[in-house]
């Protein structure tokens, strides 16, 4: 049974592997520091945001380990935006290959997201070091964090499927997506602590956390760094039904994206 499944997806696996390897090789080609940039970039961004928001504006001084939580948020957001931004143009960028040979197209989108996933893994090592320096105590609940990372991954992948197939026909999509991402960045509680919003209005904080990105990032902060980071569950006093809304959004987006992609992919070769 297992081998039968393997045979069916053998071609996809071979391609996926090779595309991921290629993308990784090409990414930092010609740069002196190379792969180091995938670590340096978020750290520099962190330094800037830290100086502006924490050092000068004194935001988050009452949240334990806020600088680490800030960096973690930035890394997770970068992962989300890398998957979707690569995703939008992925099919069009591979147009020359699509016109010449038939292969499972989803591999292209998947390859972009897997290389972002590898990037995330490298960055999480940096986070781990920061956590150790800051004296963050690890709890068993930290084991839950991969689940929430998977949630972000599923959302980003579903969006990529949808956006990449739409982009083949409508080339405005990437500009629209750029604007949406700008808005989503501020709506996802990356650079400010949710506790700040709770002080103003707990309802608003709950509403904010219905956004799956905000919910997942906050849940990861909660389980990994400090349970002082409020989550949708703690704010609603354990209302699981409410918590199901962002999860439902992720599942819905993924299914719609995958369906749309599957429906459109036979026509990519002639439309791209």
């Amino acid at each position, binding site marked *: 049974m297992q081998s039968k499944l393997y045979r069916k997806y053998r071609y996809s696996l*071979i*391609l996926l*592997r*090779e*595309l991921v390897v290629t993308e990784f090789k*090409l990414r930092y080609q010609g740069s002196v520091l190379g792969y180091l940039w995938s670590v340096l970039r978020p750290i520099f961004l962190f330094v800037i945001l830290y100086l502006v928001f924490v050092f000068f504006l004194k935001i988050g001084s009452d949240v334990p380990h806020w600088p680490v939580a800030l960096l973690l948020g930035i890394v997770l957001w970068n992962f989300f935006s890398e998957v979707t931004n690569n995703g939008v143009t992925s099919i069009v960028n591979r147009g020359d290959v699509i016109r*010449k040979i*038939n292969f499972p197209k989803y591999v292209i989108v998947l390859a972009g997201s897997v290389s972002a996933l590898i990037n995330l893994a490298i960055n999480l090592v940096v986070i781990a070091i920061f956590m150790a320096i800051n004296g963050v105590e690890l709890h068993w609940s930290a084991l839950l964090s991969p689940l929430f990372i998977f949630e972000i991954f599923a959302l980003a992948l579903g969006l990529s499927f949808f956006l990449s197939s739409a982009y083949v026909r409508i080339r405005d999509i990437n500009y629209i997506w750029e604007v949406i991402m700008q808005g989503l960045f501020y709506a996802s509680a990356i650079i400010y602590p949710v506790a700040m919003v709770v002080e103003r209005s707990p309802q608003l904080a709950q509403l904010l956390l219905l956004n799956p990105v905000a919910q997942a990032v906050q849940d990861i902060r909660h389980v990994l760094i400090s349970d002082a980071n409020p989550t949708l569950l703690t704010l609603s006093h354990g209302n699981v039904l409410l918590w199901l809304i962002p999860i439902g959004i992720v599942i819905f987006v993924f299914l719609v994206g995958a369906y749309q992609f599957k429906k459109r992919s036979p026509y990519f070769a*002639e439309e791209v």
Partner: protein
Amino acid sequence: MSEIAIKVDGVSKNFLLPHERRNSIKSKVVNLFKNTDKTVEVQHALNDISFEVKKGEFFGILGRNGSGKSTLLKILAEIYKPTAGDVEVKGKLVPFIELGVGFNPELTGRENVYLNGALLGFSKREIDARYDDIVDFAELEGFMDQRLKNYSSGMQVRLAFSVATRADADILLIDEVLAVGDADFQRKCYDYFKSLKKLKKTVVFVSHDMSAIREFCDRAILIEKSKKIKEGDAEMVATEYSRLFLNLDSETHNNQSNERWGDKRASFDTVKITSAKVLTQESKEITFTATFTAHQDIDTLVSGSSITNAAGVEICGTNTQHQRIRLDNVKKGEKITLNWSYDNIFSDGIHTINVTLHGLNSGSVADWWEGAEAFSVKREEKSPFPASPAINLEITRKGEAK
């Protein structure tokens, strides 16, 4: 032998061509308020095509440029989805519509082999096993760790071809464009085709070159204006193809009128073949007349002609300047007829005649007409070279025979 490898059943393909490409929201929004139906044109690229390819057969798809044969190939390769009809393929199919699919200039030769190989369905381990072989065949030892952008185009083609020939498929789809490049490479390609034939592989070969179809294919179909108009023995289909070319003279003129340009201070009225339109190896020459009229007084004119084969190679030609014939002081309204004659040095296949009118050293073109006429050459021996002049060969051997 009679097992079927590919079954094509009633395949049609339509392309929707928007008159203006509308792939931005603005134009879509603007378009909402207009009658959208008028702006889309349906192009029928293929119309109800059916045929079967048997296992182990070398099958040709013959047709002129724009006849739909490449669309058919892409449908067989499952790159396009047919609008109607079914395609059934039994066995592993590998398409060679272009060499080196996915080649990236920023990667090294080695990395490109693995990438291209993956697209053809090879795992890393499978390429590992074939790697030395591939490099050997491409004659690129010592270059594999250089980036592809530093390769000459010849080296790139060799590398791509080398990977492609290692694909062990049951069915191969080959586009004629594969055999581009220098004569040496073409021969390598044709050797490969022959080896496929020996190995009894199923091959679908697409071409507009009837001599290639004749040489390699067992059976063929002829596609013309999106329809299958002939199916059967390759020789018979090729003959039908040449008839198509010669019968539709007036139409070919229209089709190729866009390959005619010039300022028309003088222009050709007629170009006529005065010998047979089908040359055999016994035919000595092809003769034709070209008549032009001057529309103003012209001090100096040069008129030339050349012959092009089906692959687009200009085989030979000359003009009055090269022949040291002067065409001076041409008066307005004057009609001049040139009688051309070329020795029959042509290889098997369709050839077209081009005629030209211009100033000295090919300057200021008055009328440049490519494909003014067409003729066909039939030779029993097929040559991979564009010309087949009489060649004498004498061999002397010295030393004592024992």
